[in-house]
């Protein structure tokens, strides 16, 4: 469903979260358009993960607006949604990919069940159909079909991450929140995962917000960037612009401290 140029998919204004006297994020605002990937970069402690957690509702923000344009065309303030609707949103139109795949998977059930769960939660009642859908998605994330009945415990880190992605994509979400999706993976495994994500963004028209400390990941995946430091957005703009010609002193520091092989 097309939104038109005048309505972003997600509109965030003045998002703020405090832990006692400490400010985790302050005055964060941005728009996210359909089919766009926004990267949120910064060092640890910058507040980038807090922003993601506030959006997904994992933590309750202390203020701000988060407006989302749903698939049926109405706009909801996600922070004010009642819990049933919010939980439903997270299971259908949104996806959340955690840094540690164990946080986003059921480690005690098979890969097939992990992928099929969302479908079952939405009322799918044909075992063969659910299993076929799971097999199809496992193939799409490049997991061998014969692993469908294996437990995620037996998967490598990279495979677990791809399984987590499949588990989210099965309901064709429009917006995916990802927290350091390549964190903890070997470089070659990272590359493969990034290719996969790039493919999905292009083919499925996914919008995504990707939190990462790795500028190379940001450059590869994100159309636009937010640079965060000490809870605030210090710079934002097109990825190439921010990375090739950073304006804010902190952005310049960040970019210049990236090790070049």
């Amino acid at each position, binding site marked *: 469903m097309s939104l038109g140029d005048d309505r972003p998919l997600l509109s965030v204004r003045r998002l703020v979260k405090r*832990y*006692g*006297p*400490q400010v985790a994020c302050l005055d964060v605002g941005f728009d996210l358009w359909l089919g766009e990937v926004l990267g949120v970069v910064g060092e640890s402690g910058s507040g980038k993960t807090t922003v993601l957690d506030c959006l997904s509702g994992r933590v309750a923000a202390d203020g701000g607006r988060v407006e989302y344009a749903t698939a049926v065309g109405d706009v909801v303030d996600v922070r004010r949604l009642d819990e049933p609707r919010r939980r439903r949103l997270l299971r259908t139109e949104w996806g959340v990919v955690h840094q540690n795949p164990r946080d986003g998977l059921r480690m005690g059930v098979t890969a097939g069940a992990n992928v099929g769960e969302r479908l079952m939660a939405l009322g799918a009642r044909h075992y063969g159909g659910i299993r076929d859908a799971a097999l199809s998605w496992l193939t799409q994330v490049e997991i061998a079909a014969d692993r469908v009945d294996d437990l995620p415990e037996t998967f490598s880190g990279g495979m677990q991450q791809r399984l987590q992605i499949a588990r989210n994509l099965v309901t064709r979400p429009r917006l995916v929140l990802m927290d350091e999706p390549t964190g903890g993976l070997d470089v070659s495994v990272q590359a493969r995962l990034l290719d996969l994500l790039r493919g999905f963004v292009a083919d499925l028209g996914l919008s995504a917000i990707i939190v990462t400390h790795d500028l190379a990941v940001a450059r590869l995946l994100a159309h636009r960037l937010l640079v965060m430091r000490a809870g605030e957005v210090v710079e934002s703009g097109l990825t190439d612009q921010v990375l090739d010609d950073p304006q804010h002193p902190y952005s310049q520091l960040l970019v210049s401290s990236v090790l070049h092989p």
Partner: protein
Amino acid sequence: MKGGERAIENAHRLLAEERRGDPAVPELALAQIDQQLGLAVDRVMIEGSLHDRELAALAIKQAQGDLIEAVFLLRAYRTTLPRLGVSLPLDTMRMTVGRRISATFKDLPGGQILGPTFDYTHRLLDFDLGDTAARPGDASEEATVVETPEPPATLDPLPRVVDLLDREGLIEPVAAPPDDEPVGDLTREPLQFPASRDVRLQNLARGDEGFVLALGYATQRGYGRNHPFAGEIRQGEVAVELVPEELGFAVEIATIAVTECQMVNQFRGSAVAPPQFTRGYGLVFGNAERKAMAMALVDRALRCRELGEAPGSPTQDEEFVLYHSDSVEASGFVQHLKLPHYVDFQSELVLVRDLRAAAGAVPKP
């Protein structure tokens, strides 16, 4: 009368014989249990949630010394009792103190009063106790009553150690709930989560001592460690007061012995409040320090949520602790496995046989 009925009647007859034991041996009198096994009576009362020494002694006798069974008897009896009213909160400040110690200060106003305690005994079996020829009036080795040079009665009421800390603002103030908020009653309403502190404390007070003790111990070993100090432990008699509607003022209806423990716990590194000592609390009937102390440790562990601490241990898991502390529930459910389950087992047999047959017919790749 069918087979099952006869079996039960015979079982009850056998039980009665077992309970009496050898008829040549004198039968236990309730007074003997109350006086000479008083600590067992204390335990049965607090876990039975009923203060009646004679009934508790009877329950112990009927249960042949099985204290969990005795608690069950007392609780079942309690179910039949009408609720006449609710007393005022016990004022342990006005306690007639028989024992009072603090580990946080070397000395304190009113002094350290050792009272009767096992603490400094050497655990050597005293075979003289085995001499059944009664020796009334002999002071046994096991009870030491030591009084400080100043008699404690000069300070009345005996001030609380934690109040001394409170005056300096060093310990969290006690948050008294609003007057119109009714106190929860675990004996009347089912446990719901999140549980408020009053209900948690009730649960721990009537919880199995072994369970609460083990959890308290676990906190000390790192499972939800809360860095405890024994601020004050006092034992003695307190008045139970009730305000009858017709009178409009408080009337003392009884005095009972209680043990109270206030733990002082170190509070670290939360963004919610500046550093202050925090509290853990335990209160039980009679002379039951171990239980009161364990209760205070677990109380503090369960307060993690309201103190802004992340719960990481089973001792801080409200549902885990409060659902499994009741010995009567635990005993019932564990032992219910003795009941026939052959219908369900038959269903399982059918399935397992089918699965095995199917597995035999189609070998696994």
